[in-house]
């Protein structure tokens, strides 16, 4: 390993993460920004690693980013994010045979939520539903599926439980990522034919590559440029990009994290 090699931390939420980073590692080296990757089993450990300098760049979920940014008083920089991360949203799904006129109708009913550390399947839905006039924590019976804690919802496992609970009538409604719901719809597994989207949250940002503000600016700029140059029309890298769920990389920014920052504060998750 050369001395100039950057260290990037990511979370191994699925075996494919190795496939993705083996390919991206070669790509980044070819682009003049050699970057090794170090995998952690959970985002809390990854945040610690960025903070203590074990890694230079963290490939963070929105929840991990907000926590990291909070820890250093906002002295972070974002080097890039995926197209999907720019307009992530959460949907609330219900059974088609039990249509919902508005989210307030859910008062007194069962609402299924994904992992409690998932920004999109638990933290943000509670925040946005409150803005719609539904204090779900107080007014609904919450059916939480706290699976894969530490992965911040990356595995999608808790969202599988959410849609199943709604489909099977164990919950009146459930919340999950819009993209995950569309993926379930496309794959037909689990069977979501009987479900429909009754509400969608405003868009917010999801994952990003984060560095501390002390990270060399010129190097950070070069790393971003290399990332943004990744081309989905290049057959040699398309399979890895498909596994990562990205078609184009973007510089990103902090604007789309305000709602999550507020939500985490409200829910006592930023201490």
């Amino acid at each position, binding site marked *: 390993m050369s001395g100039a090699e950057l260290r990037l931390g990511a979370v191994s939420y699925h075996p494919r993460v190795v496939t993705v980073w083996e390919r991206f590692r070669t790509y980044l080296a070819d682009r003049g920004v050699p970057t090794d990757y170090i995998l952690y089993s959970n985002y809390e450990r990854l945040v610690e690693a960025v903070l203590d300098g074990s890694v230079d760049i963290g490939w963070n979920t929105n929840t991990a980013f907000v926590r990291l940014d909070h820890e250093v008083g906002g002295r972070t920089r974002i080097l890039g994010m995926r*197209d*999907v991360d720019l*307009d992530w*949203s959460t*949907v609330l799904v219900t059974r*088609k045979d039990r249509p919902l006129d508005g989210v307030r109708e859910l008062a007194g009913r069962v609402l299924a939520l994904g992992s409690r550390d998932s920004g999109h399947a638990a933290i943000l839905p509670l925040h946005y539903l409150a803005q719609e006039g539904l204090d779900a924590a107080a007014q609904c019976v919450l059916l939480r599926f706290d699976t894969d804690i530490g992965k911040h919802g990356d595995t999608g496992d808790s969202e599988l439980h959410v849609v199943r609970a709604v489909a099977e009538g164990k919950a009146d409604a459930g919340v999950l*990522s*819009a*993209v995950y*719901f*569309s*993926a379930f*719809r*496309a794959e*037909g597994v689990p069977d*979501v*034919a009987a479900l*429909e*989207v*009754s*509400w*969608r949250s405003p868009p917010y940002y999801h994952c990003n590559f984060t560095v501390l503000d002390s990270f060399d600016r010129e190097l950070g700029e070069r790393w971003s440029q290399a990332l943004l140059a990744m081309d*989905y*029309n290049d*057959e*040699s890298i*398309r*399979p890895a990009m498909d596994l990562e769920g990205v*078609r*184009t990389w973007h510089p990103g920014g902090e604007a789309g994290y305000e709602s999550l920052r507020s939500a985490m504060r409200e829910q006592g998750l930023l201490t």
Partner: protein
Amino acid sequence: MSDGDPPPDHRLDAEHLELGSGLEVLLAATLERVPPGGVLEVRTPSRAVALELPGWARLAGHEVVGEAPAAEGTVVQVRRGRTARVLAAPLPERGDPPPLRAGGELHTADWRGAGPPAPGDAGAGFAPLGAVPEASATSYRWRLSDPDEVWADDVGELVEQASAQQWDASREVPWDAARDLDETTERAVAQVMTFLAQNEYAALYVPARFLPEVNPQLPELVLWLSSHVHDEARHIEVFTKRALAGGLRGYALASTELSLSTLLDEHDFTNSSLLLNVLGEGTFLDLLRFIELHAPDPATAAAARLAHRDERRHVHFGVSHIRRAIDSNRDNERVLVAAVEARAAKLASLSGLSPVVIEALTVMASRSLVPAELSEAAADVRSLMSTMQRNRVRRLIACGFGKPTARYLSDLHSPNLM
């Protein structure tokens, strides 16, 4: 229409279609007509569909960029993504379809223009004829990629015949006729059939080994070798059944085994075609005809007749392929001669067809051990041997070998016949 409105074909009324019930198919087909970066206006009466469209769009590589209430529903603006769904050249415009023959038949020989295919990409995948392959990280290295190494000009027609002449070894042979021979004759038949079945194993394994080495861009060859393998499977089946059908057994001879093993030693397709198709199966044509003519029962005759029909195709392919190889490069002749010589050297210990087989053929033909009848049958078997030799030379000449070379190669051929 104001200046800012999208063109009419960039509008879609989803009516009552929903995602998961066909709307995504309609969206994909409609977006194909929208240039990358262009916006498609989707009108839907369903609030649920409007809410779900952004997730679908992201997953499909597009983006919802606007949404507005409209008469009886919502209009959702979907901007087409800039990335290609399939990494390949665009599909060509509709062209002329392949010609049909009388009765509306579409023949394999007609599915591409005349002449052999141009050398293709040795790393190509399983792209069917005419398909536009997507660029892929998966790469193959086909050993048999150059048409010149494998082609025969009438391979398309041969594939056609192979399909048309399929038969059923369980039902097209009068098996009840195989049960009543006397023990002497039946023992001879069982030995002859065992010999045939043993040889047919090699006739199957040789093309089967080449089959997965052929570049899929030569589909005629893939189909041809598949049919060859299937034919030989049926030959193994029918001769094994005939051997078993009379209740007696024959020997699987070591000399036959030695001869067949040298067929498997040959890894060059063209050399192998000469050894197996032209020399081996060619010689078997005469043997099978002899068995059909002298069969003591209709089951044996039928088995030999049905197999003969297939072997004719195989020999035809071999002659056609070798002739093309020699015509295209005279140096190939020298290589082919060397291959026959090399095999003959390995078979130096074989002095002739096993007496066990010759005796079985003779008894089968005489149907008795009465001296006068045996004498006539023995003459028939001797005559068969000369017929085989004569026809081998004739086939080798048809391949393009000069007469002296043809005689030389015929003499070198395995005394085991296959």
